[in-house]
């Protein structure tokens, strides 16, 4: 009878204030959807950045010269303590690489003369801290024409993802707060609508938790429904996104387990927001005697 009663009362509360309840659910939905998406996008960016970083981080383009000279340079660079690996990529290999990279753009490939492809030494560092020093040392080698830092792109991506992440979280938290306020408002309205009943319940000695539980449940339901919708929308939105948008080199695959675990986190957060919201709403109206 107890559980039946509590659920029945909560359902009545939800039905009585449909608009407000929808508003609260919407607020939870928007805030948690943002948060969920921020988590996913961040994961995508982190994955891609990691994959790039695994490989070469500095490219030293070489002047056209004898293969022997190129080998000398490569060997020299290989010998540096800070360098983990230095790989020579000759003109022919560079051409091949170029062809694969732009396989979907034959027109571009045709305009390029294979002979103009520069050879290069791809350097992988043992430790990223020496980055700047190595770059200038490479640049000082006479045969080196230009030094490109692949890591700049990586850094940019990481930086962008960090910004996106922070922005998403800040927005999520701000919207989350508004969701809590919305929930506390609906609970307050529900309490107001039933103030007579609550007054009598307190008069005849209903325990505080007996009075509070239906309202707590109401907030909890609002939080959970909003969070559930956010997870569903996020899940299908992400599916749609990877199916319809090709970002080329960016690897958009995120493991299913990641989506599920973060989805659970989002649901828990929704429940938490609901509970906090209803407690805030309950606080003022159910105070005891002064």
């Amino acid at each position: 009878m107890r559980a039946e009663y509590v659920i029945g009362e909560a359902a009545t509360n939800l039905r009585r204030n449909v608009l407000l309840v929808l508003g609260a659910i919407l607020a939870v939905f928007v805030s948690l959807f943002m948060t969920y998406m921020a988590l996913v996008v961040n994961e995508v960016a982190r994955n891609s950045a990691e994959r790039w970083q695994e490989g070469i981080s500095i490219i030293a383009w070489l002047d056209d010269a004898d293969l022997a000279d190129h080998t000398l340079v490569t060997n020299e660079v290989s010998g540096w303590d800070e360098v983990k690996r230095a790989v020579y990529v000759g003109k022919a290999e560079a051409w091949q690489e170029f062809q694969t990279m732009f396989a979907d753009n034959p027109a571009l490939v045709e305009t390029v003369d294979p002979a103009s492809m520069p050879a290069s030494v791809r350097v992988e560092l043992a430790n990223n801290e020496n980055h700047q020093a190595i770059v200038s040392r490479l640049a000082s080698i006479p045969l080196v024409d230009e030094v490109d830092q692949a890591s700049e792109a990586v850094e940019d991506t990481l930086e962008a993802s960090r910004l996106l992440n922070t922005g998403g979280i800040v927005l999520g938290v701000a919207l989350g707060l508004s969701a809590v306020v919305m929930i506390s408002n609906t609970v307050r309205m529900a309490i107001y609508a039933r103030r007579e009943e609550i007054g009598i319940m307190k008069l005849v000695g209903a325990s505080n938790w007996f009075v509070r539980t239906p309202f707590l449940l109401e907030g909890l339901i609002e939080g959970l429904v909003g969070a559930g919708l956010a997870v569903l929308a996020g899940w299908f939105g992400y599916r749609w996104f990877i199916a319809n948008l090709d970002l080329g080199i960016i690897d958009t695959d995120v493991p299913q387990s990641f989506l599920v675990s973060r989805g659970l986190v989002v649901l828990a957060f929704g429940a938490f927001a609901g509970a906090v919201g209803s407690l805030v709403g309950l606080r003022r109206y159910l105070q005891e005697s002064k």
Partner: protein
Amino acid sequence: MIRLQGVSKVYDGSTVAIRDANTTIQKGEFVFLVGPSGSGKSTLIRLLMREEKPTQGEIWVAGRNIADLPDWKVPYLRRSVGTVFQDFKLLPNKTVFQNVAFALEVIGRPRGMVAQQVPKVLKLVGLSSKAERFPRQLSGGEQQRVSIARAFVNRPLILLADEPTGNLDPATSVGIMRLLDRINRTGTTVVMATHDHAIVDAMRRRVMQLERGRIVRDESRGVYEGPAVTDATPAVNGLKPVDPNGQRAAPTDPEPSEEQEVVTAPGESDEG
């Protein structure tokens, strides 16, 4: 059953509602609280049900000092203290039966007990035939009977009534008083705040008179207007022959209800 020790209640740091009240009420007593509006009757009732906390002093109810009862224990106090008010406080969307049953349901009493106790108490208040009616379909007197049934259904030790006849005509009031008397005879202590001279004078029970927050008179078989009042307010004296609350100035239509039978003095009535 009830003991007040040096009880004072001050609102907002300046308005004194109760000043240094000391008294003892035995189990099974019937006590009238009388006095003009603002004399502190209602405050005293509210203190006894822990709607308010005293600013000073101790209030012992059923062996507990409710002045420092923690908030979470207040519901348990209320289960042994029934309350009845002038405005009935019934839920309009519930039937008579549901209104009374509500009091048992919300304190988690099992269904079987509700099904058993509610008809019993409805019979006691004479509303068995109207169990499925809604409050709006009842007369004022009947509504007050429902409210008394609700207060009594859990068999409280104490019944507090704050002007229970304040909205009722004299004949109906007598019916309500007979009911309260009957409840009192089951051993329930009754404390009733009232403005009603006729009732107090007819019942001849213990009368406690309040003036500006002080208990100025306490007689065991008293009447409304005591001889020893020192601090009576001129306003009351000026209005004397008329009922001071003015709520029963016009004669009301006779109620087509169970109260009709009653015209005798309630104290002498003898019911089952």
